[in-house]
């Protein structure tokens, strides 16, 4: 402003004054709406403070931390096996997937690699937890947008997947099945046949959801063009998973990363969508469930025989070093930066969870939308509170 010439400055002041007059005339008293911490749309305890003008959001800001459990601190007083039990509570809907990157990071530090049968079973369970997680998202999406039926379909069919996970690992939600060097146990008999049947059911479920929700004109009018995230913004916020791929970024860590898992032995499509809006994000997730069922089917055919556990000492001491491993989790890229100083437990674990980055775009995204669109956008970004707060 100091650099402006006199006439420019006068013109500037005049325009400011004119704006102010118009604003005073039109201005209505704003309202601050507190969405959450207890609100059905935040499925958990996220709080969104929104400044409204009528039903339009002027400014919004999520306030996380109502479920902060301090996992990064807790890992410092636990041994590696105990941390495994802890981390599968981060994203509680796809819990097996949380264990994998942590275990892989520890294995990397130890220089151990799980036997190929263990890698296969890990990948199967990983994809099953993705299906369990995302199918619930598809049902929940309906509830957020006012359709009450899809969520019951989702709970119905997710149950079959959870039964599989429970049958194999013993835990419905928190399997704690991964061990450094392999798996706790082999699959129980009958798992493969059962899984094939369930995968068929899940594909039917996807068709039902597609007919019930995605094909619905109301659903489309609610989600298309709402909350558009351009590619470069998505990258600079560190968005990941379906949120990133819905912005047209063809990047999937399952395909593009060389880690000791069995994805590279399967043939699957990475789903992308060019639009970057809420519909694209939901649609990408729906298609990913389909792809996951196909991945599981392929892996079931090719499970190699052999042990599920590499030779590791009974008391695990991880050599000094630092390692970063991230995988394509149901919610996006989940990574662990593990620092070990040669003890039984890690020295520091940085948990890079997908939802934390995914939700940090919310203040940018919510400007100027309507109150119902807040719900749509939050639902389509898909976060799990445990994954934000850790």
């Amino acid at each position, binding site marked *: 402003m100091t650099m402006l010439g006199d006439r420019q400055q006068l013109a500037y002041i005049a325009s400011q004054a004119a704006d102010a007059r118009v604003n005073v005339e039109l201005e209505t008293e704003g309202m601050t709406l507190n969405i959450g911490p207890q609100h059905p749309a935040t499925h958990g305890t996220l709080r969104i403070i929104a400044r409204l003008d009528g039903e339009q959001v002027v400014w919004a800001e999520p306030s996380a931390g109502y479920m902060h459990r301090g996992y990064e*601190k807790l890992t410092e007083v636990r041994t590696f096996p105990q941390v495994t039990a802890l981390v599968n509570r981060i994203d509680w809907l796809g819990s097996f997937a949380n264990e994998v990157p942590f275990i892989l990071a520890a294995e990397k530090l130890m220089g151990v690699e799980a036997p190929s049968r263990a890698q296969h079973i890990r990948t199967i369970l990983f994809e099953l937890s993705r299906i369990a997680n995302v199918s619930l998202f598809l049902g929940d999406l309906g509830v957020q947008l006012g359709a009450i039926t899809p969520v019951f379909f989702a709970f119905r069919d997710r149950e079959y997947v959870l039964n599989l996970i429970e049958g194999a690992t013993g835990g419905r939600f928190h399997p704690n099945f991964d061990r450094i060097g392999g798996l706790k146990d082999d699959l129980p008999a009958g798992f493969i046949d059962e899984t094939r049947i369930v995968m068929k059911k899940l594909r039917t479920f996807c068709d039902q959801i597609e007919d019930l929700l995605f094909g619905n004109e109301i659903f489309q009018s609610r989600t298309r063009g709402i909350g558009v995230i351009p590619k470069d913004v998505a990258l*600079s916020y560190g968005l990941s998973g379906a949120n990133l791929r819905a912005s047209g970024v063809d990047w999937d860590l399952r395909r593009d990363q060389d880690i000791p898992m069995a994805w590279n032995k399967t043939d699957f499509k990475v789903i992308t969508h060019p639009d970057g809006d809420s519909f694209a994000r939901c649609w990408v997730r729906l298609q990913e469930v389909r792809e996951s069922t196909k991945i599981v089917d392929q892996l079931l055919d090719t499970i190699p025989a052999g042990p599920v556990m590499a030779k590791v000492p009974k008391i695990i001491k991880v050599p000094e070093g630092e390692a970063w491993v991230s995988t394509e989790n149901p919610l996006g890229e989940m990574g662990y930066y593990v620092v070990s100083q040669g003890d039984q437990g890690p020295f520091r674990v940085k948990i890079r969870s997908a939802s934390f980055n995914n939700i940090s775009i919310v203040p940018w995204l919510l400007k100027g939308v309507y109150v119902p669109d807040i719900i749509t956008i939050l639902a389509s970004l898909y976060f799990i509170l445990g994954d934000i707060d850790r």
Partner: protein
Amino acid sequence: MFPLSSTTDTPTEAPRDTVREAELARILEALGAGVVDSLLKPNDDMWIRVTAETWRATAEKLKALGYTYFGYVSAIDWLPSPFGKSEDDASGPSGERDSTIKQGYTGGDTRFQVIARLVQPFTTIGINIKVDVADDVMAVDSWSSVFAGANWHEREAHEMFGIGFNGHPDLRNMYLPTDFEGHPMRKDFPLLARIVKPWPGIVDVEPLPGDDEEEGEAS
């Protein structure tokens, strides 16, 4: 204590990783004197440590070099915990514990380090960037103007470690109450849950009456 399995203790010839070597050379050239130290583990990852003055410039240059995907920003407190580690008795005497600071990859001179990770989209080539945080300054430049996603990560690091980020738009607490005192992720911040309860590792077996032999800790 136990020998590791045979797959690990044979020191094989480290395989060459030409892609990452070229990348690291490119980065070192672009950053010039800002880099204090660098490390490359073939087929794994790259680490560099930069000076505090060039911290923000590093982000800009790396972004220009194609590292446009923001991973995270966080910090590490290298002080060994005075309350012991993993299964140790946190309420026990802390005098015997080793308190010498042992730094990680690419070294460091200070107790606190900020660590960040950037990735080249569509590949998995990422880079871990560390910077020392001097104890008397306790602040580095903010990345939030370069990577929008750094905003929240820096807020988290600020409240958890007490590290300031110069130029950050608002460093409010994310998780903790506004009037919370202390920085929970610092190693000298006690984890209360492990202190208020008696440590369960004490073998609580009464010896036989008249039994002189002291059992001590079983393990």
